[in-house]
């Protein structure tokens, strides 16, 4: 059974903006799925429709086979949502927020209190259970929203940029928590701007742009589509101009280093030999961007032809 199925989903807002232009998407039960796209691509609108926070214009959304048009309560019961913006009552205590949310899902208060303790301990918030929620740090607020989304133990968890604005340590511990949750059987859909996060956690990926799905495949398959990487080479003396390396796209960076695009059929030895021949000594090098980020930019903005990289003199 699919955890989520979207069929020809469209949304046109009252101001005429067409946020979704007929999306088809399937997420398998047990998957860890990344939904990526630039700001305004339609990710949050799609999530809003699935969670019934936004009215769709047309199409179908099914959560574990429950049609949101005809069996909305059952669909909602299967779903937990961690939204992008803070949306709990900032005047309520942490424990109250969780117990009340459990109540909205029909969970009696005694059971709700047990679950509240379980999830607050898991997310390292138990010590803050009596704190008024507005006094929590940004990372704690994010974790509180995750605990709240899990209080009814949903089969599908959707996280809309859950690690935005949290420090690296908290982000890594959240990743570990989400990995474990997925291993325990929860299907997870994640949107994020940290593409390293999607690459590290997710098995499938869909890229949405201007209201359409432009890529939808296994993460490994999508990443295999990349044919090149960009390396930053730091010379001992900053360079005044980008050296011409036949067959390579080279760009001079502001700090006098150079960026070279290397395809799979090329090799770094040729570059180092050519630079040595020109008397340029390279003291260090690094890979410029993570691979998914590069792919994302290419798909969404056609950056492969507009990066500013010097066109190769000889086709590669």
């Amino acid at each position: 059974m699919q955890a989520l199925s979207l069929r020809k989903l469209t949304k046109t807002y009252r101001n005429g903006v067409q946020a979704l232009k007929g999306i088809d998407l399937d997420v398998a039960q047990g998957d860890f799925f990344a939904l990526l796209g630039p700001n305004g691509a339609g990710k949050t609108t799609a999530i809003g429709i699935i969670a019934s926070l936004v009215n769709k214009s047309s199409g179908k959304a099914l959560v574990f086979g429950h049609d949101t048009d005809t069996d909305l309560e059952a669909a909602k019961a299967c779903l937990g949502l961690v939204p992008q913006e803070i949306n709990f009552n900032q005047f309520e205590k942490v424990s109250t927020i969780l117990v009340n949310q459990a109540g909205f899902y029909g969970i009696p208060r005694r059971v709700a209190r047990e679950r509240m303790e379980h999830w607050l301990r898991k997310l390292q918030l138990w010590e803050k259970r009596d704190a008024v929620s507005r006094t929590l740090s940004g990372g704690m607020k994010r974790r509180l929203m995750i605990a709240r989304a899990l209080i009814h133990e949903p089969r599908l968890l959707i996280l809309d940029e859950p690690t935005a604005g949290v420090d690296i340590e908290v982000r890594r511990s959240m990743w570990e928590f989400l990995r474990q949750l997925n291993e325990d059987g929860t299907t997870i859909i994640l949107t994020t701007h940290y593409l390293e996060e999607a690459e590290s956690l997710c098995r499938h990926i869909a890229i949405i742009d201007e209201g359409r799905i432009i890529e939808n495949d296994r993460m490994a398959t999508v990443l295999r589509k990349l044919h090149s990487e960009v390396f930053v080479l730091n010379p001992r003396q900053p360079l005044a101009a980008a050296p011409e390396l036949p067959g390579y796209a080279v760009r001079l960076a502001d700090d006098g280093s150079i960026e070279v695009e290397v395809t799979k059929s090329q090799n770094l030895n040729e570059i180092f030999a050519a630079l040595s021949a020109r008397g340029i000594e390279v003291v260090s090098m690094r890979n410029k961007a993570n691979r998914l980020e590069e792919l994302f930019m290419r798909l969404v903005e056609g950056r492969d032809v507009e990066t500013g990289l010097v066109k190769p003199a000889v086709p590669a």
Partner: protein
Amino acid sequence: MNRLEAATDTGAGERGGHRWVGFRTIVIREFSRIVRIWGQTLVPPVITATLYFVIFGSLIGRRIGEMGGVSYMQYIAPGLIMMSVITNSYGNVVSSFFGAKFGRHIEELLVAPLPNWLIVAGYVAGGLVRGLLVGLIVTLIALFFTHLQVEHLGAVLAAVLLTAVIFSLLGFVNAVFAKNFDQISFVPTFILTPLTYLGGVFYSIAMLPDWAQAVSKANPILYMVNAFRYGFLGHSDVNLGMSFAFMAAAAVALFAGCVWLLEKGTGTRD
């Protein structure tokens, strides 16, 4: 069926129980809010009612003498109780629901498996709780100043319950359409207060010229105040059957309208 399936896939038989827990949770949350901000919810009506009883009842009322066959203080007491019920049931729902919209925590309810009619009922119950609580406090204050006897308890209860429900629902409508805090104070200031003051709280419409009586009869609050006053004093300026029929019809129509607004997503899902 694994743990997660068992946790979320429930039969129709359990749905009723879940809904009851959900409704009770909304009411508990509303009651907690009323108590948590008692300085805004419970204290102001006490001060206002006391001032009314001192100034209009004791000081000015003595010079007015009798109205409707009872002392002026006894005459205005039911009206003042009803006025506090109206403003507080309305105020509770409009501020709580708009606050939830503004702070976005209304989404906690919108994502939950609760039918829209139950969400409306939960907020109305919250308005009812505050309206009746404040009404009870104002009644106790009235007893410091005058003697109140109940002629028809059924009329008192029916009038106060229907009025609190109607104004809770009106507060809900206001909150649904409001886009900022100005818009939730506009209706109470420019519509509710004038209608309440002109709804026979402080006077009998029999004192007015014919044309003013006719205009007053277009004011729905007049029927509520008079139905409530009838319960205490045994007489009314308007037809009681018409008053209760109007209130019951208004409550049903407004409830249906509020559920429709929530189904449509006006102000919440757009």
